[in-house]
């Protein structure tokens, strides 16, 4: 999926979004409003440099454009799996990005994410999954890891995992399953500018994913358990 096609559809009023390596940055205009665009391309392996670059762009929006909504464009095949990144503490770089997104939210920025191509595990956690609301294009590929690797780690036969994936939103890859699980708000199709405007209007800082997962039948327990912890009576 070419990011340019997606960005053109999102911002019919114009944009200056450009790629620099695996990083996407710029400003887009839609329905009379400017959006800060921060993203990934080339199915990025998110290493320390890209996490830092995305964090820098997020901090710049908070500093220079109070209140401007932020759109994250996601295309990652995961965190960079290198010794060097672990040596430098890549978990801290990812956490820094996640905290910068939280800062933006706390400062009143609406934060929206769109998976326009791929979203796998570590590269997705600190960016798209930190947004107020995350959407996906229908053909987007979203998953934890490939089934062969999952079979190796869990020692569950690949055939069995494949059968489970075909019927269960818990195991199945793909954007539609993540909608059922509540992690993806909805699939965007047709007029992407209208989808963006609607998401921007509906965005709220509260994490609604567990409630959505329950409503849609993908995650039966998470919402109820969190509520029970919140409501538990504790005597000193």
């Amino acid at each position, binding site marked *: 999926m070419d990011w340019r096609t997606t960005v053109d559809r999102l911002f019919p009023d114009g944009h200056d979004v450009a790629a620099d390596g695996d990083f996407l940055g710029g400003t887009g205009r839609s329905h009379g409003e400017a959006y800060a665009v921060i993203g990934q391309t080339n199915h990025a392996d998110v290493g*320390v*440099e890209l996490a*830092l670059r995305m*964090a820098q762009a997020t*901090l710049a929006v908070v*500093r220079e454009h109070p209140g401007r909504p932020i759109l994250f464009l996601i295309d990652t095949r995961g965190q960079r*799996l*290198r*010794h*060097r990144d*672990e*040596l*430098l*503490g*890549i*978990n*801290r770089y*990812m*956490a*820094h990005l*996640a*905290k910068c997104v*939280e*800062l933006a939210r*706390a400062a009143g920025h609406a934060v929206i994410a769109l998976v326009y191509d791929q979203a796998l*595990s*570590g590269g997705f*956690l*600190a960016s798209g*999954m*930190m947004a107020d609301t995350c959407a996906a294009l229908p053909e987007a590929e979203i*998953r*934890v890891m490939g089934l062969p*690797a*999952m079979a190796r780690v*869990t020692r*569950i036969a690949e055939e069995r995992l494949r059968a489970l994936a075909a019927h269960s*939103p*818990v*195991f199945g890859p793909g954007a539609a*399953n*993540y909608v059922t*699980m509540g*992690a993806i708000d909805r699939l965007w199709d047709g007029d992407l500018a209208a989808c963006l405007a609607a998401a921007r209007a509906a965005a709220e800082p509260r*994490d609604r*994913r*567990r409630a959505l997962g329950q409503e849609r039948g993908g*995650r039966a*327990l*998470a919402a109820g*358990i*969190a*509520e*029970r*912890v*919140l409501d*538990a009576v*504790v*005597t*000193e």
Partner: protein
Amino acid sequence: MHPIHSYYEATARQRLAGLLDPGSFREILPPTTRTVSPHLEALGLPVAFDDGIVIGAARLDGLRVLVAAQEGGFMGGAVGEVHGAKLVGLLERARRDHVDGVVLLLETGGVRLQEANAGLIAVSEVIRAIAATRAGGVPVVGAIGGQYGCFGGMGIAAACCTALVVSEEGRLGLSGPEVIETAHGVDEFDARDRALVWRTVGGKHRYLMGDCAALVDDRIDAFRDALAAAVRAGEPFGLSALEAEHRMLAARVAAHGRDADATDIWRTLGWEQPADVPGLATADFVAQARTRRAA
């Protein structure tokens, strides 16, 4: 039963018993509620009545805290739907009630892959809840010193905390050495080279890089004192703090981005004999690190 002193050897419940003020712990969703994972049950795998995490309210050195302890003995402390929801509820409760702090005893490989998408989403909700709790003014401090370390998405969650207390035995990272070796071969990262693994993701390296606030001996009482101090110290969450972290992380890549091994980094930090670092006792190491540590 005599008390367990080693944090590394202790179970989640033994750690809580040793850390918290005597008689102060009130467990939320205890094992009697049989709060088990439906996904493990569906796969015919063993379940735990607390889903591998103990949570509750307590006093820590007099401080009013909410605590969570992950049990490495159950699926390596991995996070599934129920496990994650207990953590998220606890963090949101802390923010709502303005307790003095949240204490997370982390021992986890990250996403529980047997719960696939549900595990990944749960970890992301935990990361977001930690950040939101901090943004709401409540410190969240973490401890790492168990057999399984703290990896995967929970390595990100750990680094979102206000402060981390780590022992020399503690390991912290994102992708485990085995995962990297599987992806890029033994020349990229030899997961069986214990010394290499230790100096790349171990407690001393993380302390020297400035990724944990305290390095302590493998004793439960040492963790207790450092965790209480970290809750009291707090740390602001805001633009200037994140800008400072940003400068530090950018400087780290500039200074060490071409170093091939932790010993190269340690030498740059002023350790004239980096090969001796692994053998130093914690107290001696921390004393020498005062002038030989980033950040």
